[in-house]
């Protein structure tokens, strides 16, 4: 029973982090119609940067610095690589695939190929439902939740957020109303990248840090986006948490591979039965 609870909470923690990353993928996808294959590698770069920066200045500074670096990285990549190839979605798959190769190999060349682990910034455990649970994991879940809430507030309460929603809703009308559409798109890509890197920084102490971690996180985030319904941001969050908790639950009585297979099978069932996502018809 302890194991079931522990793995379910682990799933919940992980699901919240994945939700943050998948939200980044979802806004890029919804606004620019880009299938961003490099998104998992943005997460990976976040974990690596967090480890490196935390090693010199401490984890808390890294937690602030990494998303800012992510925003800068996203803006540069958007200008250099995405904007010239945005004419067709199939082209952006190729460019982001190339980008993914470059990011992975650059990290391997500079950071090394050896997987590393990062010590928990908040050591110790607390009693939770009759078991001792890592404090940092709880903090990570709480912090990810905070970031997700901040993101939704940003979208609904700020001018820039309103612009993003306007461009997404109707690009031509937004242009006619004087919204700088090109710049809004650039910023959105930067924001999405920053969210992936932030997710990486939060996850760095509870996962292995190496140049390949992005490969595993990418399909999971895509599944959250699709199961939640394309363009449905709240659906994305719900789907990310659901998938991770389901996987945690199943892995408490079967091996992790079987858990992965189960969640994938559930996913194909959902796609088949409700191709517009589990939460189709819910408010955007």
């Amino acid at each position, binding site marked *: 029973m302890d194991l079931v609870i522990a793995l379910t909470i682990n799933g919940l923690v992980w699901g919240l982090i994945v939700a943050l990353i998948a939200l980044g993928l979802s806004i890029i996808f919804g606004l620019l119609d880009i299938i961003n294959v490099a998104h998992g590698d943005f997460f990976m770069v976040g974990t690596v940067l967090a480890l490196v920066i935390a090693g010199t200045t401490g984890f808390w500074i890294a937690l602030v610095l990494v998303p800012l670096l992510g925003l800068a990285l996203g803006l540069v990549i958007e200008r250099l690589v995405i904007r010239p190839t945005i004419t067709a979605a199939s082209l952006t*798959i190729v460019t982001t695939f*190339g980008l993914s190769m470059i990011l992975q190999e650059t990290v391997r060349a500079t950071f090394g190929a050896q997987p590393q682990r990062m010590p928990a910034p908040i050591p110790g455990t607390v009693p939770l439902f009759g078991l001792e649970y890592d404090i940092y994991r709880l903090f990570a879940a709480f912090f990810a939740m905070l970031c997700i809430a901040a993101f939704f507030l940003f979208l609904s309460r700020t001018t820039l957020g309103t612009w993003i929603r306007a461009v997404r809703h109707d690009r031509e009308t937004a242009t006619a109303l004087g919204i700088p559409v090109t710049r809004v798109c650039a910023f959105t890509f930067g924001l999405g990248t920053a969210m992936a890197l932030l997710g990486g920084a939060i996850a760095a102490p509870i996962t292995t840090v190496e140049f390949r971690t992005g490969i595993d996180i990418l399909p999971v985030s895509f599944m959250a986006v699709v199961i939640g319904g394309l363009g449905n941001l709240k659906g994305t969050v719900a789907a990310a948490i659901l998938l991770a908790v389901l996987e945690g639950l199943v892995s408490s009585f079967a*091996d992790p591979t079987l858990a992965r297979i189960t969640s994938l099978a559930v996913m194909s069932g959902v796609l088949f039965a409700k191709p517009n996502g589990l939460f189709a018809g819910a408010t955007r």
Partner: protein
Amino acid sequence: MASRIKWAGIAAVAIALAFVPLLLQQLGGLFWINVIAEIMIWSLLAASVNLLLGYVGLLSFGQALYFGFGMYGVAIGVSHFGLGLWPAFFLGVFAASAMAAIAGVIAVRLTWHYFAIITVVFSLIFYFVAMSAKSITGGDDGLSFSTPVLWEAAGLSLTDRVTQFYFIYLICVACFAGFALLVASPLGMRFAAVRDNEKRASLIGINVYLTRWIAFVIAGFLAGVGGALFALFGRYASASYMFYHVSGEAVVWSIVGGAGTLLGPLIGTALLILFREVVSGVWENYLIAVGALVILVVMFAPRGVVGIFNDLIERRESQDDRAAADIKSLAEMD
């Protein structure tokens, strides 16, 4: 005119490839024989992506699954059932096509992003299955076997590099010739109709799902042939070749070469594998260069390498037409 140039180009590529072993023997670079054989094998996987993306308008991110079935069909056929070369080969190709026929029933009901995702999901499921079923598949370590003889009476064996090259060459030529006939056939026209306008296609009586399903099965067959050849070529099968990254690479090869063209996948695969072979010899982190090359190609040639070539032919032709029209109008003035 344009189609004649195209056919001439295709024939030229096929004939040039046939002379590769002779040329390399003269130059003493037999290492490259295997590189080119490998390019031909992978080009079948790229062609499989291309059939769906370029001719039916479906982006599959999971073709490595059928490549993997072809690969494991051969490896398991030889090492577990003790089959000969051809029975094992057909087992692999059959397994891949059958898997595509089953997965296709679900997959082709979806399109575009959803189709891309469901194909990834299927390939991931079987990737994890292959990883965990170590006793059958060897998991991550893979399954090694010794190649059965090709033709005992004639003393032909795949251990001879040149024989192996021609074995792969002939099968690839057959596949690409079949591909060319297919896209020119009435079925190929149906593919194009479904790609260009699904609604209109169904209104003129085309069964859209069935057409997509047929394309999906043929694509699975092509990938399966590639996988079966790869297993015989490497005497090895491994679950890692079923991962979605391999599928992604095939998508890149196909688009870089030119999706929707017959030879695009072959050219794209050749370009990127040769580039990798050359650069990896001089720079350890060659993947950075490969990534940059991929980005630059689609930036400057959005329709792929073969797309540029086709544009050139068409432009020259329209120039010829214009010149002819000018001459005609001059003649009329006189």
